[in-house]
């Protein structure tokens, strides 16, 4: 079980939240990017072994959308890596 920190409610059980997917890089200008990078942005979902930034929705709580870093190896909520954008 994960405890997810909600900025309004504090730490809450993961079952109160809905997963909102990983945070994706911002959308490139399709006219200014090459086909390979554009296709990569459209089709590749961040799936690292380690910290990943994710959206979660506190749907069964206060309704806040929040962003956390989660380590995919341990499910621990972790600090943003130093090289995070």
């Amino acid at each position, binding site marked *: 079980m994960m405890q997810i920190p909600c900025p*309004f*409610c504090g730490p*809450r059980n993961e*079952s*109160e939240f809905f997963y909102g997917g990983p945070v994706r890089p911002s959308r490139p200008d399709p006219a200014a990017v090459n086909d390979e990078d554009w296709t990569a942005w459209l089709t590749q979902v961040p799936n690292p072994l380690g910290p990943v930034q994710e959206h979660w929705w506190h749907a*069964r*709580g*206060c*309704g806040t959308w929040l962003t956390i870093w989660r380590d995919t190896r341990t499910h621990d909520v972790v600090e943003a890596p130093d090289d995070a954008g």
Partner: protein
Amino acid sequence: MPYDVTFTRLETQALFDLKGRREAVQEWAGEALPACPDQPNSKTEAGGATLMFIGPDHWLLRADLAREAALEATLRPAEAPPEMSIVRVSDTLAFFRVIGPEASEILAIACPMDLHESRFGPDTASFTEAFGIKALVTRCEGGFEVGVEQSFGPMMLDCLTRASC
């Protein structure tokens, strides 16, 4: 062995959903409301009405059903300024009162939150889960009150019955 609790479904409660910044809510409806609670997931009571701070810029006003018309006349939802919204939602939640020496045992089965008095005191009011569905949990004299979406009322009654026996 059955738990020493009693639970009852309360009559429909007057409920108003208020969205907007604290200042806007207070300016429009301050005189009709208890003072806006300061802490997230807390409540204030005055004049038989309870105001709960249930989310960012989100408040829920609860009172006896007999006061619904008077509250609506004071809150004037249709005339509220554009920076806020007031909606009467009395029909949306079914409330259950769970009281008795072992009320907290039943809530511990139902709800993943730590409801110990040191963490969840008499002034607390929070949406969380009860038996896997979204629920508004508060303390009351001798136990807890749990509000769930109206259509889950029969399921809630069934879960409380099975958890307590």
